[in-house]
C-alpha cells in the first residue's frame, strides 16, 4: 500500500496500461510536455515519448475524431478533454459517432477508447468550467460512464477503462485532484459496473458519487455522533453499467434512501436511481426517496455562493436529520 494523490493516480494508471500494451496511445491539449493543466499526466511524455503521448491544438472535434478513427483501426486511445464543459464542443463525435457506430454497423466497428475529463465544481472557476456532466453521458446508450472518488479508484477504474473494449467516459473531479488515499502496490485494477458500500449503517442509505462521497461520509459521522442516526454510504462509481444489485440490497436493509448529487436538480443520476428504487423496492421503503442536489441554477463563482449551492456536509447532515424519524 502507498499513499497517492488523486492526480498522481491518473498518471500511474495510464503508465501502467501503456507499459503493458503497445497499442495504448494518449492525446490531448497540454498533456505531454506540460503534464496537463491539472498536472494529472506528469511523467508520461518523458517515459513514452512523442509518438505515444501527443499534444494537440485546441480542436476538440479533431481530438475525439482522431481517437475514434484510431480505435476503429486497432489502437487503444486515451483522449483528454480538459474541462467536462468542453464536451459540448465535441458532443457529436461522442454521442452520434462513438456511442452508435458499433450498433449501426451491426457490430462491425470496434471502439476501445477512453475520454478523460475534469468534471465538477468547488474550484471557483465559474459556471462554464464547473459543471457536473456525467449525466449527459449517462443518458446516451452506448457509452460507459465512470466517476471515481478516491485515488485507489482512479487508478483501478482508469486502468479498467483503458482495457475495456467499449467507449468509456471517465469523469475526474477537479476538486479531488489534491486529495490523498491509500492505493495498493503493483498492478491495480477495479471493476467497472460495481458500486462500493464504503460505510455500513442501519437507518438510512446515502447514495453518492465522486466529490459527494467524502462529504456523505463526513455527514454520516456527524449523524451518528450528534443524532444517533446510523447511515450507510454507497459510492456508485459507475453510472453505466449501473450496479443496481448493490444499491437495491442496501435499500432493502435500511428502508430509507437519500441521494447526494453534485449536479443541478433536473435529470441528475439520482433521479434515475430513485425511479428504479421506487419501481423495484417500493414495498421496502419506510420513507419517501429524498434527493440532495445543487439547485437548478448555473454555479456561481464567489466562495460563499458556490459553497451554498453544491451540497455541503452541513446540508447533507441537516437534510438527513430532518427526514429520518
Amino acid at each position, binding site marked *: 500500500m502507498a499513499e497517492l494523490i488523486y492526480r498522481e493516480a491518473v498518471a500511474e494508471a495510464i503508465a501502467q496500461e501503456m507499459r503493458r500494451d503497445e497499442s495504448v*496511445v494518449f492525446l490531448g491539449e497540454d498533456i505531454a510536455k506540460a503534464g496537463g493543466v491539472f498536472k494529472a499526466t506528469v511523467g508520461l511524455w518523458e517515459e513514452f515519448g512523442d*509518438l505515444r503521448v*501527443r499534444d*494537440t*491544438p485546441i*480542436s*476538440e*472535434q*479533431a*481530438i*475525439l*475524431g*482522431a*481517437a*475514434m*478513427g*484510431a*480505435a*476503429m*483501426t*486497432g*489502437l487503444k*486511445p486515451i483522449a483528454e478533454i480538459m474541462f467536462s464543459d468542453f464536451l459540448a464542443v465535441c458532443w*457529436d*463525435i461522442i454521442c*452520434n*459517432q462513438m456511442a452508435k*457506430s*458499433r*450498433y*449501426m*454497423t*451491426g*457490430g*462491425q*466497428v*470496434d*471502439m*476501445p477508447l477512453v475520454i478523460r475529463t475534469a468534471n465538477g465544481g468547488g474550484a471557483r472557476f465559474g459556471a462554464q468550467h464547473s459543471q457536473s456532466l456525467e449525466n449527459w453521458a449517462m443518458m446516451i*446508450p*452506448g457509452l460507459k460512464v465512470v466517476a471515481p472518488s478516491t485515488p485507489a479508484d482512479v487508478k483501478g477504474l482508469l486502468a479498467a477503462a483503458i482495457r475495456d*473494449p*467499449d467507449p468509456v467516459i471517465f469523469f475526474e473531479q477537479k476538486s479531488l485532484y489534491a486529495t490523498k488515499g491509500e492505493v495498493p502496490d503493483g498492478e491495480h485494477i477495479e471493476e467497472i*459496473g460495481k458500486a462500493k458500500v464504503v460505510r455500513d449503517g442501519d437507518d438510512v442509505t446515502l447514495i453518492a458519487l465522486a466529490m459527494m462521497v467524502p462529504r456523505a461520509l463526513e455527514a454520516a459521522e456527524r449523524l451518528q455522533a450528534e443524532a444517533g442516526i446510523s447511515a450507510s454510504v454507497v459510492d456508485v462509481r459507475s453510472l*453505466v*453499467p*449501473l*450496479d*443496481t*444489485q448493490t444499491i437495491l440490497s442496501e435499500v432493502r436493509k435500511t428502508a430509507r434512501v437519500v441521494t447526494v448529487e453534485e449536479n443541478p436538480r433536473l435529470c441528475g443520476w439520482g433521479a434515475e436511481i430513485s425511479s428504479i428504487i421506487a419501481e423495484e423496492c417500493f414495498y421496502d421503503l419506510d420513507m419517501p426517496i429524498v434527493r440532495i442536489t445543487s439547485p437548478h441554477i448555473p454555479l456561481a463563482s464567489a466562495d460563499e455562493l458556490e459553497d451554498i449551492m453544491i451540497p455541503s456536509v452541513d446540508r447533507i447532515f441537516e437534510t438527513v436529520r430532518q427526514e429520518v424519524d
Partner: protein
Amino acid sequence: MAKKTTAKKKAPTNNAQLNDDIGEENRLKMYRLQLEVRHIEQRAHDLFFQNLIKGTSHLALGQEAIASGFGTALRPDDYTFCTYRGHAHTLVRGTSMTAMLGELMGKECGMLKGKGGSMHLTDVEKGAMGSYAIIGAHLPIAAGAAWQAQYNKTGQIAVCFFGDGTTNIGAFHEALNFAVIWDLPVVYVCENNLYMEYTPISEVTAVEHPAADRASAYGLESIIVDGNDADAVYRVAVTAFDKARSGGGPSLIEAKTYRHSGHSRADPAKYRPEGELEEWLKKDPIPMYRQRLLDYGVKEDVVKGIEDSVMAAVDEATEAAKASPPPPLEYAYTDVWADGGSSWRN
C-alpha cells in the same frame, strides 16, 4: 497552382496505347465500377418508388467517376470514409451488392443487419470504414485511422470523401489543420456537385472553390480535377496516395461534378436553373468513358460483356435481397457493446 485535366476525344494510336499510364486493366475496372454504381443507384431509385426502400437515400447518379477513379487506385487494406451519399464509395471497395441492397431494404442479409440503413453503409473487412450522416464528423475520424497507419508503420492510407457543403463546417477545418501538423497519411476528397443540399454552394461559401481555395490555409496545394473523367481522377488519386504513403502528409482534392437527381429522394431539385441539368447530362461520365474505352482499342463486345454482366449481377443481387426476410427481432437488442449485448445494469 490548379491542376486541371479534361477528357479529350483522341483517335487511338499505338503511341497512345504505349504511353498509357493507366493501362487497360485499370480502365476496364473503372468502367465496370462506374456501371455498377450507376445501376445500383438506379435500382435503388426504382425500389424506392416500389416502396421497398423506406426512409431516405441520397443517390450519386452522375458522380460515379470519382468513387471509381479513387477506388481503383486504392490498396485493399486502405481505409475509406464517406458521407450518407455513400453507396458508390462503399461499392467500389468490393462490397456485396446483395448486402447493400439488402441493407437499403432493411433485410436480414443487409450489410448492417438492418440496423443502420442507407446512410451508414459500412464494410470493415473491405476497408469501407463507414458512411457518416453528420456533416464533417468523419474528417477527423479519417485522420485517426491514418494516425493508426502512421503509428504502426503499415503503409496504409485513409481516403475521406465529402461534399462541397462540408467545407464550411468546423470539423473540416479542425481535421485539416490536425492532419497537416501530424503529417498524417490521409487524402481528403471534396466532391463539388455545385449544391449544398438545396442551396448553390457559391451562395454560402466565401471563396470560389470551396475546398481548393482553402487548401493554402492549411499549407496544402490547391488541386482541382474534372470529377466526371475517371482517368483524370485516377491520376490525381495515384499522386496523392503515393505522397501520403511515403510520409508526405495529407492532400486536399476538389473534384468537380454534378448530381443528376435531387439531394435526397424527397427532393425533385426544382431549385436548379433551367438548362443546367441538360448541360451536365451531356457530360455524363459513363457514355464518355465508354467512348474512351473504344478509343483505346477495347472491343465493342468486351464493353458490352461488361455491361451485361454488371446488369445481371445487379438483377441477381436485387432478387436475392428481395427474397431475404426481415431481420430477426433480437437484432434490435444486440451490438451496443463489444460483448454483443446491450445491458446497462445488473
